[in-house]
């Protein structure tokens, strides 16, 4: 099987944070349904890995797996990378324009000016404080899933950062059936990093593995909003099978190509 596999890890971030577990809040999909993966779209996906071997018993194929974490209740990962910053800047520009208009207004009634200022404050939103652990997320406004700046964070209507896989471990790794690693990626949809693994298909059986996934929760600490990391784990399985290679023409060993003698004579 030369096709690489993709495993989508879709997390209901809001509910996972509320219940502090990924059980029942994670939906796993892969592109191997045709080849026998089970429980697509559920939390207990079993990914089929079909290996093959040559007539002398040696391994004829290895499988490459790629994991992609997605978030339910977030701005789609397919929008351009600068989307968050661009939306934030747009909100700032609008607020500045409104402020200018307010300042230029002659002798505004005091109550009216105050109301206008409050409205402008709403549209600017608040920035999230910088912490060492969440530097990538800091200094930006909080947006909702439609890309609008959120002013009142206590309403919980904000978009969550994409979940991040921070480790893949467990039985399949301990047994040296699967060799996972994190790679840098030119594909910015996956945040420049992704987890990938090669599978030794010479060892049939069902092996479990665990993903450690980092979510981010918006919390108010000392009057400032911060994204706090929350680490949770979720388990999945690989089902490895192995069958002999065969000749496509003969279904057995190699022979002459099926050309009719003298067909062109």
């Amino acid at each position, binding site marked *: *099987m*030369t*096709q*690489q*596999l*993709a495993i989508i890890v879709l997390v209901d971030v809001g509910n996972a944070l509320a219940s502090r577990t990924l059980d029942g809040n994670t939906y796993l999909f892969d*592109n191997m349904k*045709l080849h026998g993966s089970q429980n697509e779209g559920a939390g207990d996906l079993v990914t089929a890995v*079909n290996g*093959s071997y040559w007539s002398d018993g040696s391994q004829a*194929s290895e499988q*490459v797996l*790629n994991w992609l974490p997605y978030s339910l209740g977030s701005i789609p990962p397919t929008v351009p990378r600068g989307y968050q910053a661009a939306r934030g800047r747009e909100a700032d520009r609008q607020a500045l324009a409104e402020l200018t208009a307010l300042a230029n207004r002659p002798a505004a009634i005091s109550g009216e000016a105050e109301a206008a200022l409050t409205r402008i404050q709403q549209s600017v939103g608040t920035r999230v404080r910088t912490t060492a652990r969440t530097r990538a997320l800091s200094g930006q406004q909080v947006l909702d899933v439609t890309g609008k700046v959120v002013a009142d964070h206590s309403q919980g209507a904000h978009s969550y950062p994409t979940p991040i896989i921070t480790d893949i471990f467990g039985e399949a790794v301990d047994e040296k059936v699967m060799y996972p690693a994190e790679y840098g990626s030119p594909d910015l949809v996956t945040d420049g990093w992704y987890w990938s693994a090669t599978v030794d298909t010479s060892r049939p059986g069902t092996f479990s593995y665990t993903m450690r996934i980092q979510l981010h929760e918006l919390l108010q600490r000392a009057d400032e909003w911060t994204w706090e990391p929350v680490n949770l784990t979720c388990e999945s399985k690989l089902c490895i099978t192995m*069958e*002999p*290679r*065969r*000749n*496509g*023409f003969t*279904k057995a060993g*190699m*022979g*002459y*190509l*099926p*050309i*009719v*003698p*003298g*067909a*062109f*004579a």
Partner: protein
Amino acid sequence: MKPQVNIAVVVDVIGALSDKSLLNGNLCMMDDGTFDSTGQGTPELCTVVAPGQVVQWSALAVDLQTPVEIKSITFLGPGDGEDAGARGEDSGDGDHLDLNVWTGVVPPFMAPGVPHKYRLELQMYEGEHSVLRIDSPALMRL
């Protein structure tokens, strides 16, 4: 003389399924034979071979996460793409096509100097429109 000639069939699976065609640049073929094959990089590849050489076909997807397998390779007769009777056996359901190794020995009785066209059928996932074919590539004995 090389003991083996490899023929690579490179497919843009998404393009082919969208167009329902392996043409329009959705498929190209090339070989590593030492003789003067023609049509390298096109669906009209004519691979020049010698008797006794092993020929191996393999399908590669441009996008590594898309599925493509060779479903069958059938040598055509001298007529207008009519089946001469000799054919690679179809596998019924498209399952386990990945286990096939498409290799064969160039027979000594192959007529020289004439392109022997073959039908190449590719399976891309499953379903009604998942199998596409071309009749344009050929093998020619030196």
